[in-house]
């Protein structure tokens, strides 16, 4: 007799909305998986408000058994800020792509960080605008081909990729938590996300995690090349690790 092994899903996962709507091989569900586990382990499900952006992150609007709001492209940070300012007991998570965080919504990210808003921003860096079909993003790597850089991103013409956590680190004060993780090291990414949430639970200050992620659909890569890109190419430019933790000053 065949036995079907049901995958064990965390309680915060909303079974009714699974299987999820992301493409096969996408990095978003990996980030969401560890985010879900972190929420569960910190026992904050009851008071978490999850905000997601336009971009592929919107596919997570009903992903969890937590209260959620899906908002406009780039506007997740102010929506979560508004919620948190109105009810400080809630744990506000703003979940977005690199386009949402570093391009259209960058003024919100910069100012929320500078004001030390007590929210957690999780930004998924897949080096492109995925949902709109693979255009160049602020994080597109030098020479990377996208729909709007078909011959490869020219640094002369378009500048260097945005180093988000480094920027946020430069403009935040004590109490902030900043890290860059990768879906290629899920255990570590989970630790960073958990730390970022714990920072909010402790009422310290702004917390920000960038997650290096995968978009095989728009990268047009097979499994092997996808992982090679995220593990080897992306990490040459985007250094993984904690950049700022509360209490501990930035290393000089």
């Amino acid at each position, binding site marked *: 007799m065949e036995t079907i092994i049901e995958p064990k899903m965390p309680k915060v996962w909303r079974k009714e909305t699974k299987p999820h709507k992301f493409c096969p091989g996408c990095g978003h569900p990996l980030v969401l998986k560890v985010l879900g586990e972190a929420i569960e382990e910190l026992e904050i499900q009851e*008071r978490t408000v999850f905000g997601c952006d336009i971009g592929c992150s919107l596919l997570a609007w009903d992903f969890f058994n937590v209260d*959620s709001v899906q908002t*406009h492209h780039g*506007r997740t940070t*102010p929506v979560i800020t*508004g*919620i948190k300012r*109105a*009810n400080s007991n809630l744990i506000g998570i703003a979940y977005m792509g690199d386009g949402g965080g570093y391009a259209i919504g960058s*003024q919100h990210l910069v100012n929320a960080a500078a004001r030390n808003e007590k929210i957690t921003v999780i930004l998924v860096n897949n080096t492109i605008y995925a949902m709109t079909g693979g255009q160049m993003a602020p994080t597109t790597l030098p020479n990377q081909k996208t729909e709007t850089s078909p011959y490869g991103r020219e640094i002369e013409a378009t500048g260097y990729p945005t180093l988000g956590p480094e920027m946020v680190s430069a403009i935040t004060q004590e109490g902030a938590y900043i890290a860059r993780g990768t879906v290629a090291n899920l255990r570590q990414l989970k630790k960073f996300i958990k730390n970022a949430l714990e920072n909010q639970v402790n009422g310290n200050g702004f917390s920000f995690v960038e997650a290096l992620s995968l978009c095989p659909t728009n990268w047009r890569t097979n499994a092997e090349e996808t992982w090679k890109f995220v593990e080897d190419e992306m990490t040459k430019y985007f250094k993984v690790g904690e950049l700022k933790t509360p209490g501990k000053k930035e290393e000089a």
Partner: protein
Amino acid sequence: MVTKPIEGEKRAFMTGNEVVAWAALAAGADIMYGYPITPQNEIMHYWIRLAPKYDKNFLQTEDEISAGFTCVGGVMAGKKAFTATAGPGNILMQESMTMAEMMRIPTVLVVCQRGGPSTATVIYSQQEVTLTCFGGNGEGFRIVYSTSGQQDLFDYTIKAFNTAWKYRFPTFVLGDGYQAKMRESVTIYDPEVRGIKMIEPEPFVGKAGMPALDRDPAHYRNTYNLEEELYEVVTAMAKEFEQIAPELVEYQEFETEDCEVLILAHGVVSRAVRGAVEALRAQGIKAGHFRPITLRPFPAEQLKQTVQKAKKVLVVESAVGQLEKIIKQSTYGVTTPMTNYFRPGEGITVEEVVEEVVEEVKKLV
């Protein structure tokens, strides 16, 4: 902590901006999210000075996009949140207001119109009517009160919070820079003494109980996978908006019973028109005035009836036909001849209206 900002009723001599701040307090608003733009700045200034005394909050955001979206967030968290803006700020806030519209978030936005297009001037204007009434992408399901002075600003700011929370459509108080900056007498009051019961806000997210265990998780979205899904949502909303419109529409009529020349105007211009009606009547000209207070939904039926009684209609506004457009659409089929007197971005006096009407009457005979 003092709880009641206003005890009973009081006479005051205030600017419109000060009136709005007091009205928001009297209405039990909890938090203002704001970004400076003239002519509404003092709403923020007064609010933030008064806020700590009544345990209220304020956040100055990085721009109006953020002020609008944080306001939506504040309302979702269950607080009576509001914001105020004008001109180019009103444009930036439309993005968040379209979200509030689709998600039925009861935001309150006070608009102190300034003269546009572009940066333009800061005081006199009725050039934000189209933008405020119909917004950007979407169908413009919202409620817009056009005020004509300090008393209106007080009454309708209070009302806006109740309208928003009762009907759950974004609600706008449409004033202008002139009202915002001028000082005049006003009666401010605790809504309770007038028998106005303020609606208690409720959270959309962060309600008591464990999601999925004690209750369903709240999942708000403004993106739809299928055209059919969106069609259903918008059609249902359109139907509901149409159904509640009769409860919402407000207007005033002056001397319209036997009027031959009907003058249409809204907001502060309505005051010049009222003065003109009196002066014209004294000269033996049968003038009357219809003032829509809700510009959205619009008192179309009532206006149609009154327009049909007149021989001539004159639309007076401090814009190039933004109100006229709504009027023409609302009175479709009525054949009473209609002319206009437009002063985009300028004030309109009693004398000008009288002169205009006298000219029109000459053409009648």
